[in-house]
């Protein structure tokens, strides 16, 4: 346990890890505690885009501008994690609107273009219906034309990891599966540290820090409550459906039955359909998609892309937005602005809360929070997180050359470079240690054995399920039937686990998968689930054939 801390950060999402990096680079002594794995809450459930969000233009222009600006910086510091997502908005014919429909969209996105340059976006283009159908043949409906725009996707799991890794390189400590169960306060109410408990442990430890920053995302209200409260969120549950592979050329925007915006998003090797946005009053630690939400999204999308109904749905991602409280508005009209609260005025000096915000502007949110914290601590220096690359972001290795040098398939190398950037050769070097080092662990991705070993050794992996966000183990079509077993084996080898612990490790991965798969367990997924259960309960007795009655 590090002593003599300047700052304790609570939460390992994009805000918490971004802040941790910023403060560590300024020389502060920082500890970050996350009760689960990195990038699990609002960050993990997000659409994974660093965009301005044209939908915020109507009532939240500042958010659009901020996000576009910071998106540009994020692209510069971590280019390998990014991928372009071209969007298409088909404009449906509406009675009485005629050519006005596309024109209105044209003007609207014309406004957006002014911000788009900040994030290296290509200006929008207006398309005729014929042009639109040529680039996206699956579209069904009566259209007056369409408009394209350009956004960027990012691997947010790895973004948080790289923030954390860079922070560690600058002296910070990052502890996952460590929950803050209480805050230390003196007579005057000043917050001077926290009580921590590791997952599964009974013992509670105390850690002292001059300042505590609450980056708890949707849990921020609860964390602030440990020191008397005073902040308020209006958490919004968001569901994405995940289809097995890329189903469209473009991301397509349309509207749902209630008129809210819904999109199809080709994302990495998958297709996401999202998102719902509903006030959430339930248990933040037990969020799952409901049948209604699944139907709402399916209905909205199959209306304009009917072919998707035949495709294989492999899961539903769920997250809860950390939206700042507002009264009297619908969920999708709430501002995505952020707020840095100094709890001095709430009677708890030494505590700060970073509330709200967007993934696309996590860096500037972190920078402003770090300014406030450093101001309070008297730490000089300023934000440099936009000037220096995140690990692996400095250059892109040559795909063909690496494939040749290590005798690995080019596609696997391409995916490896996407995740590791200039550090890809270091990951490949691990492959030379074992005869099967370059074999494919997850065929759907494809992920190599060496990458799994590297992640287990160097990427803050505590549980097997953490590999889902490190190198996409268990997230694809096989649901872990294939790759889970192999990954568990590698994990056990690296950690020296006995068979019982290895089975438990695999259960962790499968249980996480199950939360996502359960609400959509139909079609071919059901066959996969039957196979998975037969294999693991049957041939490995996980967990030793649970008694029935």
């Amino acid at each position, binding site marked *: 346990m590090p002593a003599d801390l300047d700052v304790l950060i609570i939460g390992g999402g994009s805000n918490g890890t971004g802040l941790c990096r910023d403060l560590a680079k300024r020389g502060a002594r920082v500890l970050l505690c996350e009760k689960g794995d990195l990038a699990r809450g609002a960050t993990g459930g997000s659409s994974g885009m660093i965009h301005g969000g044209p939908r915020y233009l109507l009532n939240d222009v500042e958010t659009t501008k901020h996000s576009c600006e910071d998106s540009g910086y994020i692209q510069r510091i971590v280019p390998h994690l990014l991928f372009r997502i071209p969007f298409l908005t088909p404009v449906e014919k509406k009675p009485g609107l005629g050519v006005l429909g596309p024109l209105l969209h044209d003007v609207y996105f014309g406004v957006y273009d002014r911000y788009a340059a900040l994030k290296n976006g290509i200006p929008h283009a207006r398309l005729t219906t014929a042009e639109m159908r040529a680039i996206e043949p699956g579209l069904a409906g009566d259209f007056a034309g369409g408009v394209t725009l350009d956004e960027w996707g990012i691997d947010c799991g790895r973004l948080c990891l790289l923030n954390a890794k860079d922070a560690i390189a600058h002296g910070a400590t990052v502890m996952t599966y460590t929950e803050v169960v209480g805050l230390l306060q003196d007579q005057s109410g000043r917050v001077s540290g926290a009580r921590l408990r590791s997952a599964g442990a009974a013992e509670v430890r105390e850690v002292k820090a001059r300042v505590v920053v609450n980056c708890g995302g949707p849990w921020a209200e609860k964390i602030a409550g440990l020191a008397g409260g005073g902040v308020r969120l209006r958490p919004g549950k968001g569901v994405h459906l995940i289809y097995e592979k890329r189903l469209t050329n473009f991301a397509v925007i349309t509207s749902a039955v209630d008129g809210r915006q819904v999109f199809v998003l080709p994302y990495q090797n998958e297709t996401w359909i999202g998102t719902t946005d509903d006030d959430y009053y339930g248990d933040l630690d037990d969020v799952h998609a409901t*049948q209604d939400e699944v139907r709402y999204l399916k209905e909205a999308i199959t209306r304009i892309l009917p072919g998707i109904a035949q495709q294989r749905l492999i899961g539903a991602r769920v997250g809860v937005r950390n939206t700042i409280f507002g009264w009297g508005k619908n969920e999708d009209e709430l501002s995505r602005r952020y707020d840095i609260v100094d709890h001095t005025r709430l009677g708890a000096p030494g505590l700060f809360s970073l509330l709200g915000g967007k993934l696309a502007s996590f860096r500037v949110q972190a920078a402003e929070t770090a300014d406030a914290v450093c101001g309070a601590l008297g730490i000089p220096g300023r934000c440099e997180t936009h000037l220096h690359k995140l690990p692996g972001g400095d250059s892109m290795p040559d795909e063909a050359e690496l494939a040749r040098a290590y005798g690995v398939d080019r596609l696997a190398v391409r995916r490896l470079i996407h995740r590791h950037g200039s550090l890809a050769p270091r990951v490949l070097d691990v492959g030379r240690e074992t005869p099967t080092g370059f074999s494919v662990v997850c065929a759907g991705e494809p992920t190599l054995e060496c990458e799994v070993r590297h992640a287990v050794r160097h990427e803050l992996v505590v549980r097997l399920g953490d590999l889902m966000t490190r190198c996409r183990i268990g997230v694809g079509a096989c649901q872990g039937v294939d790759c889970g*077993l192999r990954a568990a084996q590698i994990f056990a080898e690296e950690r020296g686990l006995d068979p019982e612990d290895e089975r438990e490790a695999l259960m962790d991965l499968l249980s996480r*998968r199950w939360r996502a798969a359960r609400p959509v367990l139909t079609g071919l997924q059901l066959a996969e689930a*039957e*196979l998975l259960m037969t294999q693991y*309960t049957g*041939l490995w*007795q996980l967990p030793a054939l649970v008694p029935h009655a």
Partner: protein
Amino acid sequence: MYDVLVIGTGMAGCIAALEARRLGAKVAVASRSWGATALSSGALDIAYTPALSRAHQMPRTLAEHVLDIIAHRRRHPYAVLGVERTIANVEKGFAALAKALAPSELNPRPLDFEAENVSLPSSLGALLPAASALAPHVGLDLVAPVKGTIGVLQLPGLWSFDARRVTAGVRHDAAALGVEATGLEVVPVSYDAAVSAPVLARRLDDLANVDVLARALAGKGKGFVALLAPPVLGLDRHAWVRQRLSVALGAPLVETLAHTPSVPGMRLQRALDRAVRAAGIDGVGDVAAVAIASGKVTGVTTVDQLEINAGAFVLATGRFVAGGVGWGERPKESLFDLPIASEEGPLEADGPDAVLRETPMESHPLMTAGITVNSALAPMREGRVAHANLFAAGMVIGGFASRYVLCADGVAMATGVEAGRNAALAAGAAS
């Protein structure tokens, strides 16, 4: 025109077809592709009720397990058939299977209802209770005390078989059963096997490749009473391969049971396919549509637009893996649109959530979903026989999941024999 058309050629469909043929019917089988049988482990599961066995803390015979199943699961096919018919049919089906597998040298360990299940090691290191198993996996019951040490072969590159995991897992499971496990030791073999299990198995059907492996194994068996091998030693010529390698080792060689993709499952399916052909049963391809007139099934149309007519039909299309039962917009049986029920009762169309539990490895009612049948194994719709000349066999029948009680092969045998006979009788073809 056939007397009987069996739809599905897994274990249940093949046994039904062979039984109808044995009774003198002219039989055809329709098949889409391989299903759960081809993914099976090499064990033959007849009856094992883990919860009850653990609760009772005492050994139980196979017959007692059948009784337990019937007493506790009223929708289980064994309960539908009743205990006497279940045991008689399993014995009959098992005999038919043994005969069908003999030419492929897969002869299963003899069945004995008065004996306990044996414990066989799986490729994942668990000790699995099984009533019987195919020949390559028989010979080492690791719970029964064996004097001496057993070697576990590790082929480098064959990651799907981890000898370390197998030895540690067997030790652990044996200890959990309160048995002192036999000594086990990993035996590394220098043979480059960096391919998948099915590819390696096919490769080892070739003499030249077996010779290379035999040289790598020469003398390695010294000091071991037996050796446990990954379930990859040959696909069609497995008996010959095992024999040859055993000679090189100087010790007996037994394969573990397999996880997917399973070479033992492939061997079994290939042997069944051959037996069906050898019995003079035609194969007609995949069924695209069924024709029904005045309450009876009259024929089917295959995907190649062939029209096949028959006097009676057996539905043996399997469950989710094989596609006999599915859930698109609602749960359904895929050929006749028969209603689906789990062991808890009819399924609602709302969504799978209601019939699934919180964590993956619990007993999910959805995993027991299938059609409902009467005691003659005729599929039911709204309390009545759906079609007078249609009978069902195997996992398309609901009321059980193969892994909550280990019984899938027994169900295939018991229902396969019954459905095959009833179809032959309904077609007026039984002699």
